[in-house]
């Protein structure tokens, strides 16, 4: 056997060896607990979805339409301004319509390691009131959103497990089960989140209390706004009451110039 042939056999051997190592690694990976891998994937998916919605700030005008089992009942409008990123953002919601609630405002200060702080300003009595943690499960101003639903979900506040794939409104989605971590106080025992595979936009969230679906949030009319795939229509269904509230986002902008001092208790007193 010539030297050249020996070298060729050696290269082939090394290639085989690396191939075997690769197969072994694949086999080992396949042997990992299925749940652990799924969890890693699920977390990465949610993390990616969150990263894709990162913006320094956000502003929109929202139309809230509350429907009961018989049909539409009432319309409300608010403006929403948010400053900061997930988990550390501050937001102000201010009602503009109907006239009797005009000026009512909610200040939300999100924290990465615990539940948000929330205060409501009621101009008719010139008072602000802190929304206590145990009161966050109640409906926000007659809508089907609870105070907790207005908080921003941060990826670090939940544990995730990939439950499979499903199609929502014709779009293939990852179906991910999320459970709030101990530090995250929540009315919900767990949630199931559907994230679209094509653009990592949220498609649906089902929130459970014990084993029953309490509220379902459907995202639709997903559009690319300044490079961020955003649902311009959200519909929250209170499954137990049979009522639903549709939130339509109008005049949506990202990275608008907002100041930190506009997100204080003093600031929400101003109209």
């Amino acid at each position, binding site marked *: 056997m010539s030297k050249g042939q020996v070298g060729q056999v050696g290269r082939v051997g090394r290639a085989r060896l690396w191939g075997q190592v690769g197969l072994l690694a694949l086999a080992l990976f396949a042997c990992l607990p299925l749940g652990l891998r799924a969890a890693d994937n699920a977390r990465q998916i949610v993390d990616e979805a969150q990263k894709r919605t990162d913006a320094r700030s956000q502003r929109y005008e929202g139309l809230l339409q*509350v429907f*009961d089992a018989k049909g539409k*009942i*009432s*319309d409300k409008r608010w403006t929403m301004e948010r400053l900061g990123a997930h988990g550390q953002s501050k937001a102000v919601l201010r009602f503009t*319509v*109907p*006239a*009797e609630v*005009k*000026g009512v405002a909610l200040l939300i200060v999100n924290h990465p390691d*615990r539940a948000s*702080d929330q205060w409501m300003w009621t*101009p008719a*009595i*010139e*008072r602000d009131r*802190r929304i*206590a*943690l*145990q*009161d966050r499960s*109640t*409906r926000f101003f*007659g*809508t089907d959103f609870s105070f907790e639903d207005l908080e921003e979900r941060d990826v670090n506040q939940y544990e995730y497990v990939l439950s499979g794939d499903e199609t929502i409104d014709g779009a293939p989605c990852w179906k991910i089960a999320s459970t709030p971590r101990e530090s995250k106080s929540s009315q919900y025992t767990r949630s199931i989140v559907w994230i679209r595979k094509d653009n990592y936009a949220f498609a649906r969230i089902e929130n459970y209390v014990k084993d029953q679906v309490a509220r379902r949030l459907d995202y639709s009319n997903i559009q690319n706004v300044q490079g961020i795939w955003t649902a311009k229509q959200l519909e929250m269904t209170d499954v137990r009451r049979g009522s639903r509230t549709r939130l339509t986002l109008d005049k949506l902008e990202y990275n608008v110039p907002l*100041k930190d*001092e*506009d997100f*204080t*208790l*003093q*600031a929400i007193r*101003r*109209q």
Partner: protein
Amino acid sequence: MRPAARIAVRIVFVSFVSFVSFVRCAEAQALTQRGFVEGAGWFFPQAALNDPTRVVGDFLAREDLFFKPAPWIQFAAGFDLRANSHDQVDDLWRLDLDDRGVKRPRASLRRLNATLSHGPLTIDVGKQFIRWGKADIINPTDRFAPRDYINVVVPEFLAVTGVRAVALHGAETFEAVWVPRFTPSRVPLLDQRWTVLPPEAAGVPIVDAGSVFPTGAQTGLRWGHAGSGYEYSLSFFNGFNNLPNVGQVGQVGQAGQIDLLRTYPAIRTYGADVAVPTPWFTIKAEAAYFTSPTADADLSQSGAAAADEYVLYVVQVERQTGEWVVVAGYAGDVTTKRRAAFGFAPDRGLARSIVARASYTIDPVRTIAFETAIHQNGNGALAKVEYSQASGPHWRATFSGVGIAGQDDDFLGQYHRNSYLSAALRYSF
């Protein structure tokens, strides 16, 4: 005109001129408003000893304008227009600025203030609403919030004219208030049912001898801390009680009449309030120690209005669950030194009571609320039920029933002839 009054008038005038000039060059989106027109009627099943009128009609139109020409400044102006079938509104057609009249003004400037903000500092100048305290039943620390008690059961807040500066530093809030011109609470009219005279005064003409308004400035300081889930604040007030002492002027006149004069004692209060959430409900407590800066000897020499020394406190629990919002608590007081003979004091009148409120949201347009206050000695009690329904984006109808029972010598009980039914229709715009 006294210096404090001149300063206050200047503050209001400067605010008004600035507001008008800015509004004239306003861009449409910088100007916002809210307002309503409301007609209401009361039916009292019983005649009162001094007031046989059993049906009262009331009209109120209110408009609030807000103008924000730049991110750092905002102007606010509010106007009221009133009419009443039972002579509770002044006959004069003039724009009332100071809310010092016995009757409600026909046209009034409800508020007029400029808000300047720069970083963590916010300064409000002009006629404005200042609310202190966290409790919902009574607010012992709420010293810059006079009220209109023409109807004792449904008082309305009045604005005060002054300067308020608020600085934020992290979770801390520091607040300083200076009010150069005193605004009194409006007390019930002497010839109407919410002034209850003792039976022995029946038939004796009661004459309103007016008010002696204090002239000095009022000041206040407040430090608040908003912690992780809990809040508390400490406050200090140096000024005058907006609720009057009521005294007789001289002896009973030749015509057998009694002349009643209102005076407003100098007071200092040291207050604290706290809100602590627990897993089951939020506990709120508020207390203030009322004392007088005037020594007893000086009081007797100067003839100034005397004030009791006392602690007024309230402890309440609050819970929202499902469609219910429930607040229940106890209001109490401890008098450490008694000086004033007689006064109109609904805050102390509600002390030593158990007070509870519950409201239920039936659906997005309908609510029902219940409220009760019961004196611990059982001598006075009030119960109220209110149903409210909205129709479309503008209209709301509200129906109320109030029952009052008790003894003549009890603050609540004295109004036992004033149980009523009321209906109000409001158009908001």
